[in-house]
C-alpha cells in the first residue's frame, strides 16, 4: 500500500444519460504531485476531473459506477455529502470566474459561508493572495471590484479563492487556455510552487505545458485511459503507440 496515494479510482464508469463518457478507469493520483490529464477534445478528461469533486452531480441524468477513494473513503458513498468533498477538493475553471464582488470578498466568501475556523479573516485573505502571487498587485485595491482585474490576475484570484478553503487537492480545468503567454507563465510558476503543499490535477490541451509542469501524465482517448506514467516517460518513450502519435501531433 502506497501511502503517497491520495485518490484511487477503481473501475470507474461514467454515463451522461445513455452514453458512456468514461470506461473502466482505474488509476491513482499521488500526493504533492502535479498530474496532467491530456487527450483530444471529448476524450473524457474534464469529465474525470469533475468527478473528483462531484461537480458532475450538478448535471441531470448522470451516473457513476465503480468507486473513487479519497483518503480511503468512497466519495460517491451514500453517506458522503458532496459539499464536504468540495471543501477538500478545490477547483479552478477554464475561464476565470471571479464573483462580481470586491477582491477581498471574493477570497473571504468561501471561508465566511462554510463556518471555517478563521481567527483572522484579513490574514487568511493576505495569505491566500500571497500564495497565488497576486498580493503585491492587489494589496492596495482589495476593496475594488474583482471584475476590473486583467484575465491573468482574475485567474490567480480564482486560485487564491480556492486556496483560502485550505483544500487538500486542487483541480485545474485548462486554467490557462483563456490567458496570454505571460499570464500563462505566471500560473505555471505558481503551480510549481503550490505542489509543495497541494496535490494538483490539471487538464490541459497544451502538450508543452503538460511536459513542463507535471510529474505524471495520463493520456485519454474516447473515454479510455490509454497510458498513465511519469511525464518524462510519456513524452520521451511512451509504451503505447497511440500515445506517441498524439504527443508528436500525428493525430488529435
Amino acid at each position, binding site marked *: 500500500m502506497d501511502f503517497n496515494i491520495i485518490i484511487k479510482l477503481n473501475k470507474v464508469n461514467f454515463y451522461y444519460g445513455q452514453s458512456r463518457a468514461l470506461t473502466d478507469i482505474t488509476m491513482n493520483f499521488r500526493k504533492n504531485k502535479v498530474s496532467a490529464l491530456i487527450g483530444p477534445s471529448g476524450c473524457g478528461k474534464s469529465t474525470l476531473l469533475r468527478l473528483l*469533486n462531484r*461537480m458532475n452531480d*450538478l448535471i*441531470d441524468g448522470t451516473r457513476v459506477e465503480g468507486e473513487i477513494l479519497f483518503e480511503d473513503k468512497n466519495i460517491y458513498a451514500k453517506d458522503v455529502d458532496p*459539499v*464536504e*468533498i*468540495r*471543501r*477538500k477538493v*478545490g*477547483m479552478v*475553471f477554464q*475561464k476565470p*470566474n*471571479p*464573483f*462580481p464582488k470586491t477582491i477581498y470578498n471574493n477570497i473571504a*466568501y*468561501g471561508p465566511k*459561508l*462554510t463556518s471555517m475556523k478563521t481567527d483572522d479573516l484579513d490574514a487568511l485573505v493576505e495569505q491566500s493572495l500571497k500564495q497565488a502571487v497576486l498580493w503585491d498587485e492587489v494589496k492596495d485595491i482589495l476593496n475594488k*471590484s474583482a*471584475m476590473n482585474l486583467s484575465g491573468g490576475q482574475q485567474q490567480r484570484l*480564482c486560485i487564491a*479563492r*480556492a486556496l483560502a*478553503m485550505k483544500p487538500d487537492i486542487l483541480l485545474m480545468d485548462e486554467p490557462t487556455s483563456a490567458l496570454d503567454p505571460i499570464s500563462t507563465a505566471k500560473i505555471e510558476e505558481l503551480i510549481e510552487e503550490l505542489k509543495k503543499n497541494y496535490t494538483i490535477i490539471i487538464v490541459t490541451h497544451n502538450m508543452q505545458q503538460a511536459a513542463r509542469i507535471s510529474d505524471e501524465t495520463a493520456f485519454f482517448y474516447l473515454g479510455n485511459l490509454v497510458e498513465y506514467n511519469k511525464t518524462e516517460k510519456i513524452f520521451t518513450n511512451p509504451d503505447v503507440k497511440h500515445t506517441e502519435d498524439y504527443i508528436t501531433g500525428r493525430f488529435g
Partner: protein
Amino acid sequence: MEDIMKPLKNNSMKWRYFKQSLFFGAVRLSSLIIALALGGILFYIIVNGIGAISWDFITKPPTDSMTKGGIMPAILGTIYLTIGAIAIGLPLGIASAIYLTEYAKQGRVIRLIKVGINCLAGVPSVVFGLFGLGFFVIFLKFGSSILSGSLTLGFLILPTIIGAAEEALKAVPQTFREASLSLGVSKWQTIYRIVLPNALPGILTGSILGIGRAAGETAPIMFTAAAYFTAKLPGSIFDEVMALPYHIYVLATAGTNIEATRPIQFGTVLVLVAVVLSIDLIAIIIRSYMRKNKRW
C-alpha cells in the same frame, strides 16, 4: 437553384440603398406611430384632466354624491392595494422561479407547470376577480377588504413576476454557481448569496410590468376590495377601500351625474397614471442602485 447564380435584375447599389431606406423608413414609422399613440393618450388625459387637479382634489374625500370634492381615499386605496399585491406576488413569484430554475429536475412535469403559469398570464382579470370573491372573500371570510384585493391582485401578477424572475435567474452565468459550489458552499447559500443578488435587477425590471397592472386593474378588485363610496379611511387590512380604477369606472358608468363629472373622471385618470408611473419610478431607482453595485 440556377437562379442563385444569375445576376439579379435591378441589383445595383442604388436600388439596394433605396430598399434599405425603405425598410428603415418603415421601421422608423412604426416606432413613431407607437410614440404618437402613447403621447396622444397622455396629452388627451392631461388636457382634459389638469383642470380638475388641485391640492384639495388629491387630499380631500369626495362630497355631494361624488360629484365634487377630492379622491384622496381612492388614491390611498390604490397605493395600499398595489403595495399589498407586491408584498404577496413578489416573494411568492421569486420563490417559485427559484424552485423552477434552480431546484426542480427539468422534465415533463416542470414543462407542464410552466405552460400552466403562462396560461395563468392569459386568464382574463375578471376571472381572477371571481376567484378572489369565491375564495378569499367568501370561503376564507376575509370579506371585501384590502387583504382580499391584495391577494387577488398578487395572484394576478404572479405569472408576470415568475416569468421575469425565471429569465433573470437564467441570465446569471452558470460559472458563478459553479465557482461558489466548488468552494464547498451549499446550494442554498449559493442561490442566496450569489445568484439572487445578481438576478434582482432583472427581476425588478420584469416586475414593474406587473406592478403597473396591479395598480390599474378594475375587475379583480371590483368584487374583492373596492367600495363604491366610503369617506372613512381603512383602519386595518380587513377594511374596504376606494380605488382609483374602480372609482373611474363608477363615475363614468354609474355616477349620479355622469356628464357633469367628466372633468373629475379625467382628473382621476391622470392621478392613476401618475401613481402607476411613480411606483414604477421607485422600482427603477432601486434597480439602478442595485446595478451600480453588481456588474459582470
